[in-house]
């Protein structure tokens, strides 16, 4: 099993959520996040003094999947999260990490059956 963590633009979230539902992803955890990478911040001015907002709003999705589903989910996320055909700096990143175990709290089921 793998944990897929995707950091995406907030404006792409609804599209990604839709597409994921369509390919049969059963569950996702969503967090508001802030981040910076190659996308620079922007400058704001308050009462005459400038400051740079370096940490930009992002949305983080966490999806637990079986190994065989990883490619499909990654492609779906990329399709929904890329802005335009060629994408833009700031579209985000996907991290894939090994998932040691999954437990369903209600029943106590363990392993892939709990996904």
């Amino acid at each position, binding site marked *: 099993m793998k944990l897929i963590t995707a950091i995406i633009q907030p404006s792409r979230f609804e599209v990604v959520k839709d597409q994921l539902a369509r390919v049969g992803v059963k569950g996702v955890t969503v967090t508001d996040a802030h981040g910076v990478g190659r996308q620079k911040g922007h400058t704001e001015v308050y009462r*005459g003094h400038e400051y740079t907002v370096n940490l930009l709003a992002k949305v983080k999705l966490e999806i637990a999947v079986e190994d065989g589903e990883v490619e499909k989910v990654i492609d779906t996320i990329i399709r929904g999260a890329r802005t335009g055909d060629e994408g833009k700096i700031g579209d985000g990143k996907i991290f894939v990490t090994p998932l040691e175990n999954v437990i369903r709290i209600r029943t106590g089921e363990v392993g892939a059956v709990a996904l």
Partner: protein
Amino acid sequence: MFELLTTASDLAVGLLGQAPAAAAPAPAGEDFVKKAADLMSSPRVIADTVWVLITAMLVFWMNAGFACLETGLCRRKNAVNILSKNFIVFAISSVAFWMFGFGLMFADGNPFVGTGGFFPALLSGDPAVDLSPLKAAEGYSGIFDSLNWTGVPLGAKFFFQLVFAGTAATIVSGAVAERIQYKTFLVFSFIIVGVLYAIPGHWIWGSGWLGAPSSGYAFFDFAGSTQVHSIGGWCALAGILVLGPRIGKFRQGGGVNPIPGHNMGLVAIGTFILWLGWFGFNPGSTMSADPAAISHICITTNTAGAVGAIVATLVAWALFKKPDFSMTVNGCLAGLVAITAPCAFVSVGGSFIIGLVAGVLVVFAVQFFDKVKVDDPVGALSVHLVNGVWGTLAVGLFATASAPSMGGAVDNVPGSHPAAGLFYEGGIAQLLTQLKGIGSVAAFVFPCALVVWYVLKLTMGVRVTPEEELEGLDIGEHGMEAYPGFSKEEGREAHSAGAIAPEAVEAWAKSSGKKGALARP
């Protein structure tokens, strides 16, 4: 139990008394007591009283405006504290003004201070105390001669003056926000309303040496650019100097970290409420339902506020490349403060220019105070102090015989109207008199306020600990949050837009001699 409390209160009224040493004796002849009682049901007194009380209620409502405005311009972690200060300050003002402020300000006494009228019962009908609503020419007798130019009951006079005193006190709360101890603010508020506001108030409105000089020109401040806004401003400046800036506001090597407010919605609502309240503040100061005067004053008031808003927006737009909303609202308030002294005496054209200058002044003043490292979270000094001075001066520049309250006259008539202003062929005398008033109020209030703040610093302390300041005063001073259950502000947002380095905290701790958990050993 209740009887005990009311008896104690009445005892205070009786003991500390109403009458100053030599109250004017009741005039002989006509039954003035009956005349006063009969007047209470006259259409004139009814109209005037309703007018005075309704406008007073509008001015009271300005406290809600200040609360919203200040809270919105400061950080979320201090919201409860700022709301608390703005709320309780009016309660304290109500008590302090009743106990001491009203008497010091308006009772008979000497040219500098009233010497009676403490813990007043505020009932009309006793010729030795007060025969409102009789005016002077109608046979008024009593210890509040300074208010016998208006024909409403004593209670109405008191209530109207009280809400003005409350406004001066609440000006301070924005300037000292985000780092002052709550208890210290409570004590200072009592002192400003009871003493620092009341004594110059006697000079200006209490038939004292500025407003009712024995010879020479009288100083004029129709609704309080100096009396309310500058006095509040001087006390605020003194407080800021004694308190010091917020942690992280000014960088070590120079430079300013912006600390953005957390809720522009509250800022907007607050400013609208204040704008509305000013339609009580200014026209209400006629203390009579004089149709020509109050209509004219509504227009001059609104014009100055509107032009102030527009000009401040344009100036900020030019200087900072974007129309900063907080400068727009500061500009509106600056115009309103500036028109407060001259509102009854200037033309609409005059009010336009007064608001225009105010809009320019306020933007540059905000920059100036940042430059000299005076940390004013809401622009209180730029709005109230600077434009309080400008508005008071404007009387000497723009007063014109054509304004209804001037009655077509160009000469200075104490108790009635100023001489025409410099730009209306009145010469420079009124302007110099205005300057005299501004200077003497400053010379009294600012040093006294500094002393009071400093004594408070030495006794109960004025500032919260650095740890509390960083965590937020809501937790430290009140043990609660403004928005419990909402996701917490991230660490970096909670402090400022620029990161607060630990060095900044240590530097502050070192310079103020305080040790906290954050100070390096």
